[in-house]
């Protein structure tokens, strides 16, 4: 199994060149916000280990919000942000990226501080990498290659079933399965369908992952006496903050919302990113660092098989601290429209949203960290709209496929790798088509 890596490169833009950069980014698209996979500047489609990428000008949407705490605004400068989610190691991908997209990257980074004509693209990217506090991958180990092969398998089988509907209708489940097995075997022999076996798991990653799997609970067990002792004080502090923290929830600016919406819904999946200040003080900072440490653990070891709690529409997501942990962003790639994504947030994982987002300045008031907050549906949506940042360029290696499609296709493939299936199992399996 080949695990996935997340990459983020962030470089401050020279203010005088921000419009030039914006025009340059537009040239990568063939639809508003949607990258042309074959564009000559950054030919995303040529990287066959690249799942998702985005190039955007990351600008703080709410630089002055911290003033509600009597603090002087101190936001980060507008930066060019390059996101990538890829199969295998980040270093290997970056090397390939720097090589094959050098001309385009040179022009893009040329609008940033500290990049000159003599600068080395790979070196610049390495120096400007920004780590995630937590990463989420819908299905750890599912590669771009596997996704494409399984999608082709699904499409071929669906077409076969359509073409032979009358003949298959009278057949018993086992006979239908035999016919489908025969069809796929023939297609594989003819080279029309390929099902590459999974790559071996890198030994270093396997060991590191195992240590992480065991190490975090061990640390928690060791720390539990102290955590328990601290709990009453923590709850007292929490309530003190929760009842005093100001909300900042004005109606969103319709022009800003329309500008972001114009970039959305061109594929069945959309990119998403919200950014804001963390509430000041050590209490909130340590809380969010601790929670993200747990989220990262959960994403690596618990929620790595098609769903993040009840949400089955997120492909990749990440939480990143910015500006010396004064600010952070959450970026994701989700299926459906923003309205349905926000409704999923509210109705399915409101508790989880509250845990993390309630540490952000202006969030709707929570009670005991998990209740309230997002359940104030309209105010929560105002908060989201206000903190959302437009994504100028977004690339997805498998247009038109949702995370649920990927799950369905993988299950369909599983049926070909099993020697026997009961009638009931076959019926369920055929339901995937």
């Amino acid at each position, binding site marked *: 199994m080949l695990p996935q890596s997340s990459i983020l490169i962030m470089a401050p833009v020279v203010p005088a060149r921000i419009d030039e950069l914006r025009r340059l980014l537009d040239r990568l698209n063939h639809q508003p916000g949607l990258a042309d996979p074959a564009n000559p500047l950054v030919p995303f489609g040529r990287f066959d280990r690249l799942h998702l990428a985005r190039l955007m000008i990351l600008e703080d949407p709410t630089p002055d919000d911290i003033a509600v705490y009597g603090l002087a605004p101190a936001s980060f400068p507008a930066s060019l942000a390059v996101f990538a989610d890829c199969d295998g190691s980040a270093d290997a991908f970056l090397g390939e990226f720097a090589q094959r997209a050098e001309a385009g990257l040179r022009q893009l980074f040329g609008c940033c501080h500290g990049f000159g004509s003599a600068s080395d693209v790979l070196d610049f990217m390495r120096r400007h990498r920004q780590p995630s506090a937590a990463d989420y991958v819908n299905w750890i180990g599912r590669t771009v290659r596997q996704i494409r092969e399984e999608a082709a398998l699904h499409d071929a089988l*669906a077409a076969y*079933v*359509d073409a032979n*509907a*009358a003949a*298959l*209708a*009278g*057949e*018993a489940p086992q006979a*239908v399965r035999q016919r489908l097995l025969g069809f796929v075997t023939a297609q594989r022999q003819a080279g029309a369908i390929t099902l590459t076996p999974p790559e071996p798991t890198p030994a270093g990653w396997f060991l590191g992952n195992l240590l992480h799997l065991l190490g975090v609970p061990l640390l928690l067990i060791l720390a539990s006496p102290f955590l328990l002792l601290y709990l009453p004080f923590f709850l007292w502090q929490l309530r003190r903050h929760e009842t005093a923290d100001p909300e900042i929830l004005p*109606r969103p600016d*319709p022009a800003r*919302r*329309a500008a972001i*919406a*114009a970039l*959305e*819904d*061109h*594929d*069945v999946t959309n990119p998403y990113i919200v950014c804001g200040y963390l509430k000041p003080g050590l209490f909130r900072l340590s809380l969010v660092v601790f929670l993200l440490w747990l989220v990262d653990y959960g994403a690596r070891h618990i*929620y790595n098989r098609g*769903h*993040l*709690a*009840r*949400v*089955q529409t997120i492909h990749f997501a990440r939480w990143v601290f910015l500006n010396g942990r004064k600010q952070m962003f959450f970026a994701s790639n989700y*299926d*459906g*429209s923003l*309205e*349905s994504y926000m*409704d*999923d947030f509210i*109705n*399915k994982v409101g*508790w989880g949203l509250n845990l993390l987002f309630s540490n952000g300045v202006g969030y709707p008031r929570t009670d005991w960290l998990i209740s309230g907050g997002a*359940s*104030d*549906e*309209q105010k929560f949506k105002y908060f989201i709209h206000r903190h959302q940042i437009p994504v100028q360029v977004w690339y997805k290696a*498998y*247009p*038109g*496929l*949702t995370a*649920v*499609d990927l*799950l*369905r296709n993988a*299950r369909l493939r599983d049926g070909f790798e099993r020697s026997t299936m009961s009638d009931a199992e*076959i*019926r*369920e399996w*055929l*339901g*995937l*088509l």
Partner: protein
Amino acid sequence: MAGSAMSVSPEFSDIQGIVRFGHRRLTAACFFLLRIVDAAAARRWLAQAPVTDAVQRDAPPDTALQVALTAEGLRALGTPEGIVAGFSAEFIAGMAGDGNRSQRLGDVGGNAPAQWGWGRPGAVPHVLVMVYATPARFAAWRDEVTSGMWARAFALIGCLDTSDLGGREPFGFADGISQPTLDWERSGAFDNVQLDYRNLAALGEFLLGYPNEYARYTDRPLIDPAADPSGLLPAAEDMPGRRDLGRNGTYLVLRDLSQDVGGFWQFLDRQGGETGLAAQALAEAMVGRTMDGAPLVPLSRGPVAGIGAEDHGPPNRFTFADDPDGARCPFGAHIRRVNPRNADMPGGPGGAISRLIRTAGFGRQGWRDDLVAPARFHRILRRGRPYGAKLTPEEAQHAGAGEERGIRFICLNANISRQFEFVQNAWVMGTKFNGLTAESDPLLGNRQPVSGCPATDSFTYSRDGAVRRRLRGIPQFVTVRGGAYFFLPGIRALRYLAAMNG
């Protein structure tokens, strides 16, 4: 105490009748789309218009009149921008206000607003006047409504006529069977997780000024008492220092849907040979009910909150819980899309541990489990009427193009983006609804390509045998010819708007 506020009886005399009644007895109706040409005259007409309220009378009236305004209409009437800005963003932007909205609503290709007869940018009506009566009284009532200041106040964009098809829509199916039941007495607690589907809806889902399913008040214009010196408006429940312009009002979505009845039955008849199914059986699979309105799934054994066991008309007491494979009612059937009848949580044992496990996203049964959003946040109250002459399926076999028929689709909701737009986008036009792919609503779908999929013109259904069947190349049967978002004010709010001097 919260309890005392909840026992107040409903303010039926301030609510427009259409919220409570479909005026089914008043089988003659037409809907005027108007532009305001003289604001003062329009205000005088509105001030005196005999708008029908929601009070139930011993002798039901022979006539009814309802009035609604678009955001442009409010402005044309002289409503200050500060008040207009208090309405929802989607109401202000309008149904055809931007490309992203049109994309989400499926208003692209043949449905694109540029081709609409009315409601496209530049042709948005200001006022909707809905005139209902018994056939005998209709002409006189219409003349009465359009008298006085009418001619000076308004320019006519169009008059949407309707016809009485005896409770059927033009394809021939019984229509308007399933409606949410409003919790007029405000007896329910709606903010908790609902583990069963229920058809009882918080009043705030369909009227502004009341708590919604999240037990919150949807934003609407709240007015400084100084701007209401005559005290026409009630105080806002959630903000007693402000007057509530939204109270007892709601949003009205009107879409003019043209139905190709000939094309529908002729296509299904052609499929008959290949599928071995009669056209009617295929049509019923697409709808999810028989033509007479019986659902394709069995009725629930237990009660469903908000659906009486002895409701008159076609049966409606069912959910899809007993049809998890879509064997009886296809996943993509119209009634399954527009109201999936699910709960807030996927099904499972009732214990606390099991609930915790399901909250954490585990214990799902099958790959389709929990893909669809909880239904209760996405309900609409339908008040549409068909138009055009009746055409039976047999007659439709020989029908040529030409004669227009369809539905003046009307729905009411307090939050257009969460209710109408969500249902239209995620469920009706959604090509990935409930794990499906390459298909949208079999009746309403626009068949337009989406990314990675050249056409969304399929419909998947089950017959005997282990393998599903699929129709392909389904033409577009329903085309949008116009549409707009209106505010249907409470009667006091209407008088307030009419009394303003612009």
